[in-house]
């Protein structure tokens, strides 16, 4: 019983990890608390839904499209709406991202309605055994893909010129400027990367679970917790945070009933804020 629970928790946590990293990067580095992040995630789900319905494309493949489209959307939104208003302070950016959420939510409602949607994959039912537990194949695949994507993000940040540029800006904005790095461009790419990760998560999510606009709000609640647990802008921190949240939710559902999930999550978040505002991992930005 415990093993099954643990496996469920980890598989869920992997998805949460990928989801949380995007939000954490946007908040920690670009300085934007993106209240439309939930909308971006499920937009990714709907994109995969359409590719599945129209072209029978497996979401594991169409997720590339989700990622690309959400990257572009993120870049456009950041450049036109957020960048000009950052100096206005948190009130402006918060309410602005909320406005974006409203608009995206409305579009989703109009096009796809509020009904829950699913992508029915032929191999949806298969699972394999691990000890006493059953591991659903799709969840396992999604977990692996999420892990690969997280690692790729890490490599991007550590090894590519742009990634290093983003890190530099995150650590010392003036210093980065002094060496000729285009700071605004780094913030832009980082933000767009965040929404891309959201979209990718959405596609992976769609392969396993059903989705609807109802998930919008709760997703934001979850990524808040993950970002704070892991320390803003910290990739591996967010990954750990995602896993922790997966475990907390799964265990919480078993021991307390799923209704208390949100309350538990919130209490954890506020507690971490008060005792370790830099997250459980401390102050370092990456790795």
């Amino acid at each position: 019983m415990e093993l099954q629970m643990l496996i469920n928790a980890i598989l869920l946590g992997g998805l949460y990890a990928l989801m949380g990293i995007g939000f954490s990067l946007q908040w920690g580095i670009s300085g934007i608390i993106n209240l439309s992040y939930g909308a971006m995630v499920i937009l990714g789900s709907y994109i995969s839904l359409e590719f599945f319905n129209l072209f029978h494309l497996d979401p594991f493949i169409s997720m590339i499209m989700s990622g690309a489209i959400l990257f572009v959307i993120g870049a456009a939104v950041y450049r036109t709406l957020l960048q000009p208003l950052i100096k206005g302070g948190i009130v402006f950016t918060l309410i602005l991202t909320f406005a974006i959420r409203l608009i995206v939510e409305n579009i989703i409602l109009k096009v796809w309605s509020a009904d829950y949607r699913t992508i029915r994959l032929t191999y949806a039912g298969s699972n394999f055994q691990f000890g006493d537990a059953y591991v659903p194949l799709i969840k396992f695949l999604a977990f692996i893909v999420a892990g690969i994507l997280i690692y790729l993000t890490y490599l991007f940040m550590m090894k590519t010129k742009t990634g290093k540029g983003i890190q530099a800006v995150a650590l010392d904005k003036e210093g980065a400027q002094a060496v000729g790095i285009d700071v605004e461009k780094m913030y832009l790419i980082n933000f767009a990367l965040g929404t891309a990760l959201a979209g990718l998560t959405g596609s992976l999510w769609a392969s396993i679970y059903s989705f609807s606009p109802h998930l919008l709000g709760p997703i934001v609640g979850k990524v808040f917790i993950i970002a704070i647990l892991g320390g803003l802008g910290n990739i591996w921190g967010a990954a750990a945070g995602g896993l922790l949240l997966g475990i907390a939710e799964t265990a919480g559902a078993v021991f307390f009933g799923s209704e208390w999930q949100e309350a538990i999550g919130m209490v954890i978040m506020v507690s971490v804020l008060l005792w370790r505002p830099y997250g459980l991992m401390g102050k370092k930005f990456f790795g």
Partner: protein
Amino acid sequence: MFNNKQVNIFLIIVGIIIFIFLPRFLSGYWVRVITTIFMYAVISQGMNLMSGYMGYLPFGNAMFFGVGAYVTAIGMSKGLSFLAVLPLATLTAILVSILFGLPVLRLRGHYFAIATIGMSGALLSVVQNATEITGGAMGTTLPIIDKSPEVTYNYFYLAMLALMVITSLTVYLVIKSKLGFGIRSIKANEEAANSMGINTTYHKVIAWAISALFTSIAGALYAYWMSFIGPDEVFDIMIAVNTIVIMLIGGAGSVLGPILGAFVISLLSEVVWSTFLEYHLAVLGITIIIIVFFVPKGITGTITDLIKKRELRLRKKVSV
């Protein structure tokens, strides 16, 4: 507003009198709409004190609205009269603000805002789950007032109007007082404020307690008015979003702002709901974007700027 204090006082009194007699000329529907406007003005004044004047945005401030509503509901279901429960409701809200305020107000900007959202969400969950006490997710009822609908909604109209006037007056007096300068200094430069002998923790907690006080009374009145409340309704994040938009369009950092903003936003919503029902979310979103880009200082802020520019121009003319 205008420079002459007596003119301002006169205008305000005239305004209040007009509002008192307005229901005679309006349908029940509009009386209820304006009552809601008054209510939002009250909540926005509370937010504005914290955010516009002190620079701390309590995104989850609506939790005090919910606390006020639920304590009232629970109290009245035990047989207490409204006037007996009201002090209990406000006291509970103030206690929450102080208890949570002491640790949470230490957090900087972003973190404080998020923490309040967390608190609000947690309270919502608690209310949803403590079904025996609160009626759970399905909501709870309050005693219905034994009068005709017309008398009832006129009663609540006047009650909310009175609350709005008292709240606005209180905020005005606080801002002009020594306490107000302490509060404003925190937004201006918190480190400097500390070095000048201002006990910033004390000021932050007091400001939040005042904010909680009035917001909870609004919640209490709302619950009594509606006779039925549900957790999603009174702890709704949209309450916070609406008050922020009201603050923005009215102009943060002014006492008139929240009132103006409440009117503008409500009237806008009425128009949007009747014309764009299916797109009301998107229209609200676009409206927010327009406000933030073109009227970032809100109505009062933009007017103040225009007046200053005019004064500068006149001064230049005189010196030349």
